[in-house]
């Protein structure tokens, strides 16, 4: 069943309001109930949506779709990057959002759109043309599959993954060795990021088993991973 969320749950708060966590939970429960019927692809496991982006204020609502739970949630630092999706621009908040903070929520109508951008991991190419030339069409498919695994896993495991940078690299020691480096930029300590990379290795190995021999060769010879970490933003 597809429910028109705009008719049933349209509310506007034109001024900044101080609200308790319970108020937010109650206020959004009905939205989430409706949202659970929408024809938007969502994970069955805990997911989260962002609502009410305005001037740096965010409400983060965690949704456990199948059990009907919802609650406010600290904004993860990897959500700090500006996100552009379907012409909807969300500016980066300057600080973490905590329960019972002041929330500003201007247009709940955006909820369906916002659900679709619940995976705000930025993918950026550094010299996309060279990457695509090197990989060819087969390699491009492999890269798409790899990125899909990264994004799905990051969402499922709630990784503090800020962005993925795709680099074309001509090896500094061997000039004729060219490859693609996927640099996963995390907002956490190194050990945590390294653990996530190993979780990714397992999934990539599983992906490899589903690829053709030629595609496996591309994955083995041309695609490499590394991580970079930056300190998380502490709440003030």
């Amino acid at each position, binding site marked *: 069943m597809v429910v028109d969320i705009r008719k049933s749950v349209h509310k506007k708060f034109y001024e900044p309001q101080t609200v308790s966590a319970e108020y937010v939970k109650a206020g959004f429960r009905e939205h989430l109930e409706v949202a659970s019927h929408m024809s938007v692809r969502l994970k069955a496991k805990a997911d989260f949506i962002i609502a009410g982006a305005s001037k740096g204020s965010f409400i983060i609502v965690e949704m456990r779709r199948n059990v009907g739970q919802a609650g406010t949630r600290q904004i993860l630092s990897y959500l700090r990057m500006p996100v552009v999706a379907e012409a909807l621009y969300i500016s980066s908040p300057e600080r973490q959002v905590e329960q019972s903070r002041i929330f500003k929520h201007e247009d709940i109508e955006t909820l369906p759109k916002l659900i679709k951008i619940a995976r705000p991991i930025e993918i950026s190419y550094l010299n996309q043309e060279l990457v695509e030339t090197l990989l060819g069409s087969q390699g491009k498919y492999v890269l798409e599959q790899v990125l899909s695994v990264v994004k799905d896993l990051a969402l499922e495991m709630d990784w503090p993954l800020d962005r993925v940078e795709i680099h074309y690299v001509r090896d500094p020691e*061997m000039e004729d060795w060219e490859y693609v480096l996927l640099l996963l930029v995390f907002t956490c300590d*190194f050990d945590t990021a390294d653990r996530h990379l190993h979780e990714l290795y397992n999934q*990539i190995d599983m992906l490899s088993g589903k690829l053709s021999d030629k595609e496996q060769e591309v994955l*083995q*010879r041309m695609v490499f991973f590394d991580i970079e970490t930056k300190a998380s933003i502490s709440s003030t």
Partner: protein
Amino acid sequence: MTSRQKPAFPALDPCKYLDLAREIACRPETQARRTAADRAYYATFLFSRDQLEMKGYMTRYGYAEDHRYVTQTLKELLGFLGNEEFRMRTHRNNVTYETGDVGNPSLDWMLKTAEKIIESVKKLPASSP
């Protein structure tokens, strides 16, 4: 009959580089720690190269290209654990050539990763003809 001279640098088991790395890793000076990281990488690379050749997985050429063949062969044989050798080499280049501050991975990571890769390579069976 001429008597053989003792070589200036006798033959080496690459794993001895890892022993040396562990030995100097506890010293606080950055030059010692960087050398330890560098030796940890070379223990891994040289041991892997020699073992992969001995077990019939690759041919050793004895020049820089061997880095590429070792990395790719490890990825092929050990799955994405082979990516760790690639990361070690990247970090080794940083600690060796970059004289400014160098961040993570730590020396401890280098030593542990070296051990992990060497143990995995040891367990590889000989390649079937």
